[in-house]
């Protein structure tokens, strides 16, 4: 069919997003769970708390630590990843750096905020889902942030041309099959400012296509923010009603 991708979406449609706050029954200060299509990510946040090691003590700001666990059953093949796996470390550094600049760390000097992410199922957009889950978990934990950090992916199909022979629109929110096929990037914006706090692209793409991909990614981030904000408000309302008994 014309103009539809392999899962029936149009170029600017997001996958189904389902998110929840405070999912964890453990003692984590904040937790969240997000599903973007079939990508499922769980996030727990602890802190601010005493740093686990002396080296992590910073005199004027909190240290942000991130740990990412890929479940062995998360991909199509069963792969058990160790702590030193490159992909794991990459994700950890990216998330840690992104949130170290968005959390108001100067309010909690000499303490540590730990973000612990479990990836239960991978179907494309893993980094984006992790960033979104972390934002929600931080909000649930009550840790002050500058604003929401919402992330989304976009891809540029280079082999399919439309009727006029020009390149088609970039695809929003690529899934695993699309990710392995076409170049894609992940972009994360802060709140509604459309300013980019994180950008990651690992494929080759012509520089002319870049602007389009980033623009589509940013519009996707705005949509994601709307969905996340609605869930946060809904959850907040339920908690408020439960507390005040109305």
């Amino acid at each position, binding site marked *: 069919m014309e103009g539809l991708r392999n899962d029936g979406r149009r170029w600017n449609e997001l996958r189904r997003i389902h998110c929840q706050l405070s999912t964890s029954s453990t003692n984590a200060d904040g937790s969240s769970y997000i599903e973007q299509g079939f990508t499922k990510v769980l996030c727990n946040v602890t802190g601010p708390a005493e740093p686990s090691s002396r*080296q992590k003590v910073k005199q004027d700001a909190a240290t942000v630590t991130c740990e990412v666990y890929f479940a062995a059953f998360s991909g199509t093949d069963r792969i058990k990843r160790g702590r030193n796996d*490159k992909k794991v*470390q*990459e994700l950890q*550094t*990216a998330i*840690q*750096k*992104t*949130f*170290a*600049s*968005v959390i108001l760390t100067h309010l909690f000097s000499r303490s540590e905020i730990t973000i612990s992410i479990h990836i239960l199922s991978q179907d494309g957009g893993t980094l984006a889902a992790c960033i979104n889950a972390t934002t929600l978990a931080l909000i649930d934990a009550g840790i002050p942030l500058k604003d929401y950090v919402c992330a989304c992916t976009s891809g540029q199909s280079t082999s399919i041309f439309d009727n006029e022979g020009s390149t088609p629109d970039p695809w929003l929110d690529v899934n695993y099959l699309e990710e392995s096929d076409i170049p894609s*990037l992940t972009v994360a*914006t*802060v709140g509604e*400012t*459309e*300013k*980019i*706090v*994180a*950008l*990651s*692209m*690992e*494929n*080759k*793409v*012509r*520089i*002319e296509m*870049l*602007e389009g991909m*980033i*623009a589509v990614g*940013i519009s996707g981030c705005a949509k994601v923010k709307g969905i996340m904000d609605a869930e946060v408000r809904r959850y907040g309302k339920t908690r408020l009603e439960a507390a005040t008994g109305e």
Partner: protein
Amino acid sequence: MPKEPEISLAEKTFVLEALKQNLRVDGRNIHSFRDIQFSFGDDYGFVDVRLGKTRVLARISAEIIRPRPDRPFEGTFTISTEMGPMASPSFEVGRPTDLDNTLSRLLEKSIRRSTALDLESLCIVTAQRVWSLRADLHFLSHDGNLIDTACIATITALAHFRLPVVTVSGEDITIHPVTERVPVPLSLLHWPICVTFSFFGEDDDGEMVCVLDATAQEEALREGDMTVTVNKNGEVCQISKSGGVAVEAETLMKCARKAAEKVKGIDKLIASALRGDEIARNKGNLDWLKEGRSENER
């Protein structure tokens, strides 16, 4: 692990105020690289790149191994980076810092994942013997912008390296020494070059200050950074911006275009340095040229 000494408040204020007026401490333009100097060793594949005071050494070595079972047509290429105290007292051998991980990640994405090197050309006998290349990077001095320097060093070393000629006859593989047959250059599909931008907040005109090729002092004071890897054909091989100050998409695009422009210049520099080395090698030794022919006897 000894930490870098903290920058004093006076220094910090001076540098940042100057940048707001688009002035840099060493007098450069905010968009210009330091002078890049190349120095080649006697062996092929050995190059020492200097970007101001930052110095990185790259060495390429090759050996013949059995290929991976799931990829019988391809050779292998690995990049090894290890930072030691020689570069800076805050680096410790065996304890990779964030910079270490970031650097090896970026080099991996820029050079290996973008298939700068054609791995299929490294195959000698399918499923049995392939070349395994290894790039070892040594960081001799750190004055900022190790990433760009390391990438330039690796690409130059790869372009400089010569692989010995191998002939296969039935089951036997003969590696010809350099005196018998002229070694052949590697098959590089393109030259990806990293360009790192450092962000310093807004200047007097309200625009984000984006500085190219930051020195160590500027790196310590920056609010954010982004590394774009481009080749001279205008293809962006990777982009990485993790955290740091949030930047407008427009500014990022401007940076990407600037990077593409700069890379064309750097590409020419590398090419001319390689040509210069080639001429220096062949000077006064034309007999060697006559000896090393790859034609067969007729």
